[in-house]
């Protein structure tokens, strides 16, 4: 894929997830961390599944992770991605222990197992997405 679409379905979220997208629009990937037991969780939740605490803080993610799975999508189904197809989609496992569906940053193709880092990609005024690129510190 050469270009990431200029328009995508807009993740507005609700409650806890709205805040996730709002942090991205201000340029940061932040994740929820439980104040009591420090477990990081994603997708955002109102309460900690490990200890039950409802106290949580949005902490800045390291952005470092590994490509956990990948696919190349042919029929795009979403009209916003029609011009981009075929394009790659990924599941990334972040250092904090959580997983995210994402895509490689524009122009990149990544494989399972590669070390990656998150780059906040500004799609337009409404949406910024955490995409990934090859980690510059990775040996390979």
């Amino acid at each position, binding site marked *: 894929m050469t270009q990431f*679409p200029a328009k*995508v*379905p*807009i*993740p*507005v*979220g*609700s409650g806890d*997830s*709205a805040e996730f*997208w709002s942090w991205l629009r201000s340029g940061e990937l932040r994740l929820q961390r439980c104040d009591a037991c420090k477990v990081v969780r*994603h*997708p955002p939740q109102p309460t900690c599944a490990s200890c039950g605490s409802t106290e949580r803080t949005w902490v800045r993610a390291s952005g470092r992770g590994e490509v*956990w*799975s*990948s*696919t*190349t*999508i*042919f*029929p*795009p*189904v*979403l009209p*916003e*991605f029609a011009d*981009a197809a075929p*394009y790659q*989609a*990924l*599941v990334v*496992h972040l250092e904090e*222990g*959580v*997983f*995210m*569906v*994402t*895509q490689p940053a524009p122009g990149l193709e990544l494989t*399972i*197992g590669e070390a990656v880092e998150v780059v906040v990609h500004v*799609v337009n005024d409404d*949406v910024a*997405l955490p995409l990934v690129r090859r980690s510059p510190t990775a040996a390979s």
Partner: protein
Amino acid sequence: MLDAKNGVVRFDRHAAIAGIGQTEFAKNMGRSELDLACEAVRSACADAGFDPREIDGVASFHIEQIDEIDLAFALGFERLRFMGRTPSGGGGAASVVGLAAMAVATGAARAVVAFRARNRSKTAAYGADPNQGGRPWEKAGTTLSGYQQWHHPFGVAAPAQEMALIARRHMHVFGTRAEQFGMQAVAQRAHAATNPNAIMRTPITLDDWASSRVIADPIRLFDCSLENDGAVAVLVTTRARAADLAQPLVEVLAHGQCDGPIHTDLARFFAHTALFGERVNGAAAMSPDLFGVADIAPSDVDVAMIFDHFTMAVPLSLEQYGFCEIGAGGPFIESGATHWPDGALPVNTHGGSNGEAFVHGLNHIPEAVRQLRGTAVNQVEGARHAFVCGSITDPSGALLLRGHR
């Protein structure tokens, strides 16, 4: 004694499948879902020799558009005593009959119909509900707040695209090959070729599979379930009552449900399953009790009906339910084990969801029943025990059935 072990119900001669019914399966049938549901339920009752007005329980999928009261009014049920629904689409493919069996075994109802009716034609004038007249992503809108917010902005929206990410991880961890999914597609299409109810009656070769277009790598068109209209109904009653009805007895031995993540939420799916080791949806943990309660081993199962939204669900289910080692599902299929008539465990002998039809897997139950009655088109010689499971990538469940003929 009717009881349960670690959540798996032992029916101990309290529940049986007395009747099975289905409509024609086809694309764009131009019939309402209620019309299809009524035909399937009447057909199941006719099969059993049972008056539909005596049905006093309804078990259905949460996505079902026909409400319990719609069916009751249309078919003249005199009194409904039990109503229950299963979550997560095809996750309910076995559990919906499990619910019915629990209702009759406990006395909550005397005769429960489990059913599913689908009209997926885009031209359908039968409703604009998210599960009618087109695909969910076509109705998702341009602002997202549900699970779709984690997938759609990244161009992932169709189940095939989600399943592709699960399949690719399985291949990476275990060395599973896409061709092994293709071999299951070929086996099921061979089964469908002799099934007069099947939509796809032309067999395919592995070369045909390999030249079918890629939907989302590694998933090809021929790995995918069909999109069609149709309805299926299963009449469940007590074993004592069923023994007085028209058909050979098919007893429900055991039923368990299992929790788990859903493929439409891949962040949670992978957080939950990681390496496909201990658990995908709780099935691996449940399986020993399922077989324990039924007092049979996986090797005693003669035929298996496995929910197959995509062919890769077959190896994944076989692994999780203990028919082979975790990670060995690909080689198990390649060995020919799932292919009727020579395989040790023929799977989806009616052609499954890529051969017969896609009815959220409920069409797999009538096939299990036909096998146990000895009336299947692709009959497994002397089949006595059948295994049926719902979607392995959703909150789900499984059944063990025994035929008496």
